[in-house]
């Protein structure tokens, strides 16, 4: 039943062949076709700009006050591209191979190869837009390393790469708004998909300022609404990031792919107390130069700077000499958890490890001294020069660390711990990024397609922009070419009225509960269940418990939540309640998926399935498939499997030693 529509032919010519043969829409017809885009992060903004440029009539929606604030803005470290500017052996094939291997052989070959192919175009496009990437003194683009690779292919703008890329896409989007090709609806939240004759034909959105519901028609609907890491309550996602758009699509028939695949990022600032509302990432790029360690002695209470070199355990360098501190995220996170669980953690909570810049500062200082011809520079001068270099590379991250913790990371090692960061799972899409509902597409983090069971660093920005700039402009034509005879449907059509009524009923139901507990308190409880039982390590018993607990929590939510204020006014608590209600349902499905996948792969670690050394142990014979779940009603889902065929790469036990 699941047809991924992967083009025939050799892997490296699939995309070229597809582009050469897909249907086209002529410019006069494009002007008559309307496309709705939900979300304006990298995927949504790039898609809206590109489709606007092509001449489609685009309506773009975001819940923020401006498309420039979508959470892509917070991405720090960089964006990968197979440019091989460093002459270090990179190629489209290597980027493809690293991504498949990094994803622990749970991604589709054809999609990932296409991603690697278009990666170079993304850099070119962004440079042309004026994205100020870091440059070398010769004026050419600079690169750095990221986890899970042995080449330098990551392009960056200090620790603010996501910001710069998003501003590039945002400016391209605003240009189309000015030209009248895109109509922008900010402070709007999509609350339902409207289907007519089985096809996605529009949405119901809530104007978050007036509280009024609106109907919008589109010949196609693109969901670019990001990931669902906030199901864990604490994550590196923005406070508003949510699953609602994707979840509504799921309940309207779009299958949800690999929902349990969650990325726990190894380098985040540890939790400081119950008041914590979100967690902050310290870019993976810091693992380029920083060294991760814990004391060799359990429960060592000495200050980091008092622990001599020989009493430190650089456990990543010890366990994985080939990749050292640059092992993929899932591996680094589990290794940190292992050390902390064994009693070697640091800080007051003992749930942290050190990320130490002392040796990098000294190394850079010496290089700088050499450059300046200061062969007899003293240690103090070397350290001071080294700090300057580190400041230029990572200054904003160090400042952020100091603001949050009150400690100066130039002087003492940073304390870090893994935190929820990204969700590889998402709406199931075919090669054309279309979900199982015709006319409904999912782009960027909202889909499941490219990262398998673990995403490599600097690949999310690449995928979001690949989908928006270079994939959807082709694949959507293949669908819309057959829609040129479909006139715009008036929004007084019964399907719109029905969808709006359903949304309205649900909002009234929520407001009328008038219970005692706040939305936030339910969200926190859901997050705790998810983190404890469906987090970095999962087992059958815990997952079964979690499912029961979530079902009970759902009942309690729908009978005791308290939402203040009114419906037809600005009401952030109501917005949050809508989102948390969806997170609760999603949480259950994630646990069901994790329970079904009785193997470990990438970020999904089932304690029952590990090697003697504690590494993730895949079970290719039984689980070499995408788990795509169909919504069947309250607490009920049906599993569909998309078999993964590896024609080019031979799956093996991942080895970073």
């Amino acid at each position: 039943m699941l047809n991924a529509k992967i083009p025939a032919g050799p892997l490296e010519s699939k995309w070229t062949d597809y582009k050469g043969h897909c249907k086209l829409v002529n410019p006069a017809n494009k002007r008559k076709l309307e496309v709705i885009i939900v979300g304006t992060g990298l995927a949504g903004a790039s898609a809206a700009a590109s489709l606007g440029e092509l001449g489609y009539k685009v309506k773009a929606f975001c819940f923020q006050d401006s498309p420039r604030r979508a959470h892509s803005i917070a991405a720090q470290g960089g964006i990968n591209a197979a440019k091989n500017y460093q002459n270090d052996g990179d190629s489209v094939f290597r980027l493809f191979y690293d991504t498949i291997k990094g994803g622990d052989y749970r991604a589709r070959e054809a999609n990932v190869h296409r991603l690697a192919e278009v990666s170079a175009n993304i850099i070119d496009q962004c440079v042309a837009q004026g994205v100020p990437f870091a440059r070398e003194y010769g004026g050419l683009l600079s690169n750095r390393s990221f986890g899970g690779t042995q080449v330098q292919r990551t392009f960056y703008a200090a620790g603010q790469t996501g910001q710069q890329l998003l501003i590039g896409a945002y400016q391209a989007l605003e240009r189309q708004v000015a030209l009248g090709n895109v109509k922008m609806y900010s402070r709007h939240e999509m609350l339902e998909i409207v289907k007519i004759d089985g096809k996605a034909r529009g949405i119901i959105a809530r104007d978050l300022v007036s509280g009024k519901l609106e109907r919008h028609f589109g010949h196609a609907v693109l969901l670019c609404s990001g990931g669902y890491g906030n199901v864990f309550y604490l994550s590196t996602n923005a406070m508003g990031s949510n699953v609602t758009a994707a979840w509504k699509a799921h309940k309207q028939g779009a299958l949800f792919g690999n929902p349990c695949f969650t990325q726990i990022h190894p380098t985040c600032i540890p939790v400081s107390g119950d008041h914590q509302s979100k967690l902050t990432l310290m870019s993976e790029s810091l693992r380029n130069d920083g060294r991760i360690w814990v004391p060799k002695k359990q429960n060592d209470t000495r200050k980091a700077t008092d622990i001599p070199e020989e009493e430190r355990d650089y456990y990543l360098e010890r366990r994985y000499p080939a990749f050292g501190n640059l092992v993929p995220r899932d591996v680094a996170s589990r290794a940190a958890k292992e050390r902390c669980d064994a009693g070697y953690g640091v800080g007051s909570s003992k749930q942290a490890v050190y990320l130490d810049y002392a040796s990098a500062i000294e190394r850079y200082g010496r290089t700088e001294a050499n450059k300046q011809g200061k062969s007899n520079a003293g240690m103090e001068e070397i350290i001071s020069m080294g700090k300057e270099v580190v400041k230029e590379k990572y200054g904003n991250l160090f400042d952020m660390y100091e603001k949050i913790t009150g400690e100066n990371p130039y002087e003492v090692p940073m304390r870090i711990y893994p935190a929820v960061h990204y969700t590889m799972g998402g709406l199931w899409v075919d090669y054309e990024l279309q979900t199982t509902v015709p006319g409904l597409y999912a782009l960027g983090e909202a889909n499941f397609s490219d990262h398998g069971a673990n995403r490599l660093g600097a690949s999310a920005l690449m995928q979001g922009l690949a989908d928006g700039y270079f994939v959807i402009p082709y694949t959507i034509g293949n669908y819309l070419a057959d829609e040129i005879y479909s006139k715009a449907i008036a929004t007084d059509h019964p399907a719109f009225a029905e969808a709006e009524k359903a949304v309205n009923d649900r909002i009234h139901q929520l407001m009328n509960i008038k219970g005692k507990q706040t939305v936030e308190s339910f969200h926190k409880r859901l997050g705790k269940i998810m983190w404890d039982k469906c987090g970095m390590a999962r087992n059958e018993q815990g997952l079964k418990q979690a499912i029961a607990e979530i079902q009970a929590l759902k009942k309690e939510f729908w009978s005791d939540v308290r939402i203040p204020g009114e419906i037809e006014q600005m009401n952030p608590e109501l917005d949050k309640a809508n989102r948390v209600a969806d997170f609760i349902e999603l949480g259950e499905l994630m646990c069901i998926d994790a329970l079904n996948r009785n193997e470990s792969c990438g970020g999904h670690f089932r304690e029952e399935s590990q090697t003697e050394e504690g590494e993730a142990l895949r079970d290719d014979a039984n689980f070499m498939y995408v788990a795509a779940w169909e919504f069947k009603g309250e607490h009920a889902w049906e599993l569909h499997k998309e078999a993964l065929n590896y024609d080019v790469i031979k799956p093996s036990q991942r080895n970073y030693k």
Partner: protein
Amino acid sequence: MEHYHMNLNLKVWRQKNNQSKGEFKLYRVENISSEMSFLEMFDVLNEQLIRDGEDPVTFDHDCREGICGACSMYINGKPHGPWQANTTCQLHMRAFKDGDTIVVEPWRANAFPVIKDLMVDRSAFDRIIQAGGYISVNTGNAVDGNALPIEKDKADSSFAAAMCIGCGACVAACKNSSAMLFLSAKVSHLALLPQGAPERKTRVMNMVAQMDKEGFGACTNTGACEATCPKEISISNIARLNQEYLMASLTAE
């Protein structure tokens, strides 16, 4: 770092919508940890208000890591509060001590009307960008990224201007509610790059015209914007903007 707890008095601007008249209301929050962020302290206040059957305080916030530019509180007379080079979300409670009274208001500017409580409408910034804050290059038109070497210093200065998060603190800090720092950051970002050259003149003329239309005030070089900018955007960008504007005006056809 020593941690401590504190009780605080909050004087918060409450305004139901942009039609109604606002007023300050007094609240008390207790047992606030010095490790909390300022917005987490507001979370505590809001949970308390909801439990007491009152309307929680509405404010803009999203990433809570100082980059999205959504948060916008005017704290004790300063946009984003007492710390230098900081956003409200990254302000932490160790900036305050037990017994303090903290006054919190929205951004105040004609071009930023209040939506509710501490939330304002900053869509004027988007419209200024629409007037020319971009390079006109359709997807697919680009040449190789390394085909156009750019001096590192220029690229770095361009980046320093492009770091603007569009929060509007510069406008809130300015006695004239001028948007010159915001505008100049965008003009500089693009004028410093060769890719931005073809549209250099029209860009600055159109963006300035839009800024005036939105009702932002004039710049009188007091530097309050630079002093308050969370990303430390330099006021020298305003000098560059004036230069660009003058050059464009003089050579206009």
